[in-house]
């Protein structure tokens, strides 16, 4: 990995790591006596370990000119492996907290094992750890292919990937320590948020610099989705996390917003995180890997463009549907509801486009579990966008809000759409970049597919039942005009569904473990092949192409 960096890039890496280590040390010193010291130490330790790693390869020969004849896929490889590791962690913790709801006493009397601390480890682990790493890894891969240009340099992709994972590590470890700013999907505190801004700006600059050097006249639609994801997440992240820390020596900060403005900012962020992190980025994946795997161009490129602009314009206004029946002005609630209902049009454009692309390749869907992952993802995308529009209607929301129906809806989207399209894309990209004819075991891909499908269905049906029962119990009145059920009554009614949900989630998590094993064995297979390669001098790629042109 270090041998792929030029000498100048190795120096730059050491300089950046030194700066990060000093910042970590400064946080640790300023935060002594505060929990911040732990994170300062963690940042410094991470930087120092990486410095030793860079120094160990510092005097390795520099990469030659022939590198420009190849795409730079090593960051993608690392990102895929990291995504699968985070999938196992995030989904494992998810199943843990699911069982915690069945057996609430299972906290070992330890603060870190309480539901409130473990749940964000699950949500951040799957959304940012698994989803984010998969987005970064695939975006580098797709960007280079669709631009027919290599990444602009060898250092910045590593900065983005490693810097992003440092953020994820700070997030997850912070929750266990009790560091949180209590904003849904934006729990990390100010110093982690500032760090992510730096990482994100570099990420966007990689995109722009590669596109500027592209050899294709048109920017393929997948890149539009990826760029919308990067750009809008930057805006959302900065605005929602505007906060003032108590001091530079404290992990705690206070938001710049208060009251209903705070709630509106948070759900503007929260719903657009769904739109631009969990939808736009993964639609970018879908628009590249699905046509590629099916071997057919996308059914209608125009539908792709219309869908893109529809999603980017309309999602921005949908967030207020999270705040029906609150102090938010009625017309703002109605605005959010209206845009959410209209969103069905661009969402179904994308889903229909993908399914119509597969029309004529259904035999491949039958035979190839990788393509079937993507097909099923699109079906779940269509279902959950319909359900989302429906649930945003105020009258429906009065039944569904604060119940498990919402949890079911989120997981129909997160398991059914996000995770399935990611697994499909990973199974497509892993043999491709490790130059293998296929995954280590196609049977294991099949097993993963059926475990995922079964797990998602069990999960979603359990939560639909649970949520509607819960909603109905909360609004049932006795003849005397009092509530017929206490809150505890509704909890007791939930228990069987919580058991079912934990089993379904378990299926899904086991599938992810199988996926990680399969990816790992494919990598081992590839490195074993390289080791067996004949004992001959390496002919540079340039020399070979000259001979061929004689």
């Amino acid at each position, binding site marked *: 990995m270090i041998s792929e960096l030029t000498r100048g890039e190795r120096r730059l890496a050491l300089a950046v790591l030194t700066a990060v280590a000093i910042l970590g040390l400064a946080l640790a010193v300023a935060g002594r006596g505060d929990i911040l010291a732990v994170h300062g130490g963690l940042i410094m330790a991470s930087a120092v370990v990486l410095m030793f790693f860079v120094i160990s390869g510092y005097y390795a020969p520099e990469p030659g000119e022939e590198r420009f*004849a*190849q795409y730079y896929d090593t960051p993608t490889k690392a990102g895929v492996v990291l995504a699968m590791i985070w999938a196992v962690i995030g989904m494992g913790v998810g199943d843990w907290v699911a069982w915690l709801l069945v057996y609430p006493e299972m906290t070992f009397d330890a603060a870190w094992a309480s539901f409130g601390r473990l749940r964000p480890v699950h949500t951040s682990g799957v959304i940012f750890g698994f989803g984010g790493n998969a987005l970064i890894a695939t975006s580098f891969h797709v960007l280079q292919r669709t631009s*027919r240009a*290599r990444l602009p340099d060898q250092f910045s992709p590593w900065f983005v990937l490693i810097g992003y994972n440092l953020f994820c590590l700070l997030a997850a470890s912070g929750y266990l320590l009790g560091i949180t700013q209590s904003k849904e999907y934006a729990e990390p505190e100010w110093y982690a948020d500032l760090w992510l801004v730096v990482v994100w700006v570099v990420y966007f600059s990689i995109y722009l610099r590669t596109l500027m050097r592209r050899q294709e006249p*048109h920017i393929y639609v997948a890149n539009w989705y990826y760029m919308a994801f990067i750009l809008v997440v930057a805006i959302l992240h900065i605005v929602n996390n505007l906060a003032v820390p108590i001091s530079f020596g404290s992990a705690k900060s206070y938001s710049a917003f208060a009251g209903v403005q705070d709630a509106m900012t948070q759900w503007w962020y929260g719903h657009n995180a769904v739109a631009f992190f969990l939808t736009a980025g993964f639609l970018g994946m879908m628009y590249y890997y699905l046509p590629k795997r099916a071997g057919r*161009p996308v059914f209608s490129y125009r539908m792709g*463009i219309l869908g893109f602009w529809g999603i980017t314009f309309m999602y921005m206004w949908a967030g207020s549907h999270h705040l029906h029946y609150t102090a938010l002005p009625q017309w703002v609630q109605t605005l959010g509801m209206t845009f959410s209902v209209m969103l069905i049009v661009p969402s179904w454009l994308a889903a229909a486009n993908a399914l119509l692309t597969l029309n004529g390749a259904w035999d491949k869907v039958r035979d190839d579990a990788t393509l079937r992952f993507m097909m099923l993802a699109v079906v779940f995308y269509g279902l959950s966008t319909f359900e989302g529009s429906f649930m945003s209607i105020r009258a429906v929301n009065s039944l569904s809000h604060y119940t498990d129906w919402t949890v079911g809806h989120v997981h129909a989207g997160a398991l059914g759409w996000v995770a399935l399209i990611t697994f499909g894309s990973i199974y497509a990209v892993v043999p491709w970049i490790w130059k293998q004819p296929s995954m280590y075991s196609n049977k294991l891909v099949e097993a993963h597919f059926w475990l995922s499908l079964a797990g998602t269905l069990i999960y979603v049906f359990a939560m639909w039942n649970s949520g509607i029962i819960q909603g109905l119990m909360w609004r049932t009145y006795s003849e005397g005009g009092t509530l017929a059920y206490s809150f505890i009554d509704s909890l007791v009614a939930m228990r069987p569904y919580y058991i079912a949900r934990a089993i379904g989630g378990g299926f899904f998590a086991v599938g992810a473990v199988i996926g990680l094993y399969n990816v790992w064995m494919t990598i081992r297979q590839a490195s074993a092949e390289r080791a067996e390669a004949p004992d001959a001098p390496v002919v540079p790629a340039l020399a070979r192409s000259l001979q061929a042109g004689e």
Partner: protein
Amino acid sequence: MIDHDTLVAFSKSYGLFYLMAMALTVVAYTFWPSNKERFDEAAKSIIDDEDTPCR
């Protein structure tokens, strides 16, 4: 002095027209006849590439 009602009136009217204008622009761009060839080319180009960068 700008009060809440003024802002609401502005955002409701301006918001309507700029979203309609954007929608018309996007539809025009998407269905502009001379763009068709470019879009078809882009859709096809990802299927048959040789997996090395153009130099």
